[in-house]
């Protein structure tokens, strides 16, 4: 009995802690959403206003301020870079897991080592290369760069998912007459679909939120949402409510994608744990 009570108390303690951590993480987001429905005069006050009359004025202002182009650019960069990543990473992960090529460990290390270099250190050569190619302020440049940026992580993630597929299942397919392509499309991918979805979602999030490349390589035509948001940050802090509205809009697609793919994501990310 006493032991049961103790575990009950411990459980309540952990639950409270989990809620606390959750609220600490969520509070800024909640505050952002609340602020986005305020008037500018209510947005930044020394005693924060919790009760206020909600308004959609800030959203109207953001839409008329040209967020549409930024959203379209971000969507292009995100969708096409993610597709490109999957097209390249799936065969690569296959060659590094199911039928390992010679020295595949070196290959794997090479992929991840590119993530060890800070992007700041690489921006000068990238900038020069992009400028000399005449590809500045071009959304397709961002597609290529985002694909390159996400490729190593995608290869590593997909590889670990592929390794979860029982080897015998693939061997059975080979004996049943499947070639490499059919082995991949008929047997492998349906099994690892949650993993592929999780990988794609991670790529979507990273691309959608990317700021540094966008800041350095785009201007007006190819500006993405994060770049557009920065336009609201001013030293006077005059446009807090509008900035919150823009930031809320910018967060929505990723939040929605995460919400929709929640089940797949959890299944994908915990694939190895439930074997």
């Amino acid at each position, binding site marked *: 009995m006493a032991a049961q009570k103790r575990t009950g108390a411990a459980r309540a303690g952990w639950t409270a802690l989990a809620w606390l951590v959750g609220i600490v993480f969520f509070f800024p987001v909640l505050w952002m959403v609340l602020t986005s429905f305020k008037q500018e005069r209510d947005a930044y006050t020394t005693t924060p206003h919790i009760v206020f009359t909600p308004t959609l004025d800030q959203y109207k202002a953001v839409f008329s301020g040209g967020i549409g182009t930024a959203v379209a650019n971000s969507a292009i960069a995100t969708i096409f870079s993610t597709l490109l990543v999957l097209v390249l990473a799936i065969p690569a992960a296959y060659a590094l897991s199911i039928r390992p090529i010679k020295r595949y460990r070196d290959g794997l290390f090479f992929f991840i080592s590119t993530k060890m270099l800070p992007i700041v250190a690489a921006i000068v050569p990238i900038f020069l290369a992009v400028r000399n190619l005449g590809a500045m302020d071009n959304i397709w440049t961002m597609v290529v760069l985002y694909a390159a940026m996400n490729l190593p992580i995608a290869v590593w993630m997909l590889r670990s998912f592929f390794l979860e597929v029982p080897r*015998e299942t693939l061997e059975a397919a*080979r*004996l*049943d007459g499947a070639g490499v392509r059919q082995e991949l499309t008929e047997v492998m991918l349906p099994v690892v679909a949650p993993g592929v979805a999780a990988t794609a979602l991670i790529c979507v999030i990273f691309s959608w939120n990317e700021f540094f490349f966008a800041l350095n390589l785009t201007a007006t035509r190819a500006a993405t949402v994060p770049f557009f948001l920065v336009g609201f940050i001013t030293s006077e802090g005059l446009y807090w409510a509008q900035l919150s509205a823009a930031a809320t809009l910018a967060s929505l697609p990723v939040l929605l994608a995460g919400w929709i793919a929640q089940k797949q994501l959890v299944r994908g990310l915990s694939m190895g744990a439930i074997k």
Partner: protein
Amino acid sequence: MAEITYENATRHFPGGTIPAVDALDLQIAEGEFMVLVGPSGSGKTTALRMLAGLEDIDDGRIMIGGKDVSGVAPRDRDIAMVFQNYALYPNKTVGENIGFALKMHGVERSERDRRVKEAAALLDIEGLLDRKPKQLSGGQRQRVAMGRAIVREPSAFLMDEPLSNLDAKLRVATRAQIAELQRRLGVTTVYVTHDQVEAMTMGDRVALLKDGKLQQCASPQELYDRPANTFIAGFIGSPPMNLLPAGHQDGKLTIGDAHVEVPEAHRSEVGRLDNVTLGVRPEHLRLAEEGMAGTVSLVEELGAEIHLHVRTKPADGEEVDVVLRTDRHARYRLGETVHLDIPSEHILAFHPESTELLFAPQA
């Protein structure tokens, strides 16, 4: 249907010191049910996977139907395999699982459906065709795996411990079904197991492997009656053959305080050896008033019979547990002293060093 031949087939695993399969020579006749049996790490599964094309052949070759398949891809070998964990496609229904190979070989949909239904009927799983593998019991999955193999009408079936994930009762029933099915279809079958009971009951012939080397390939009865060495004698049979160190002089074997005459016909085989390993099956030992003395160390009551373990001292300072089958109505106490009669007409003898068979009773 096809005959299968291993010629000096060898497989080295990278980093391994000894070959996983060492110069295997084996001929499997058309329509034969061949069982590869051996302990863990004996190379039996590797030998099967070499035949399937899932493992490289480093030396020698393998022929199927007179054609060298050593460099041929698995899909072009016209063989079907049943895996230990069944390896069903989890996202496909039972029907799609069974029909997958036909689809890969471009068989038309209507023809495919007909053959899938036929195979399902043969295995009594017609009602399961629309289910997914995870909705099936272990026994049903096993039958789906069988269905996937037979629907192809391949030239050979390869089975890698297909019963080891089933519970004991189902295993016995399925064992009989597979053997019966194979006889009906008449397809050459290579069956891997570590279970000697499966090997003995199912195979036309049994090939016994140890450390990658073929020890003996013979009919189950031959393997039981005339094991080529002490390893086989100890592996085949449950409980296994008793093996006792024995001294030898002038046709007389001495085991502890007991003596056994070497049958006249086999005197020459034993020759001038001073020692041999004597083998005697548990069913041939009898309790007697006199003979080899020992104490009862374990009584296993199996219902139909009793396995009596008797601790004996066949040689100085050495204790060996001998097992005999006795009448189920007898009663024994642990620690009780008993005497064993070793009938000379049933004894086998093995060379003390090479462990090879010297003689066995004439059948």
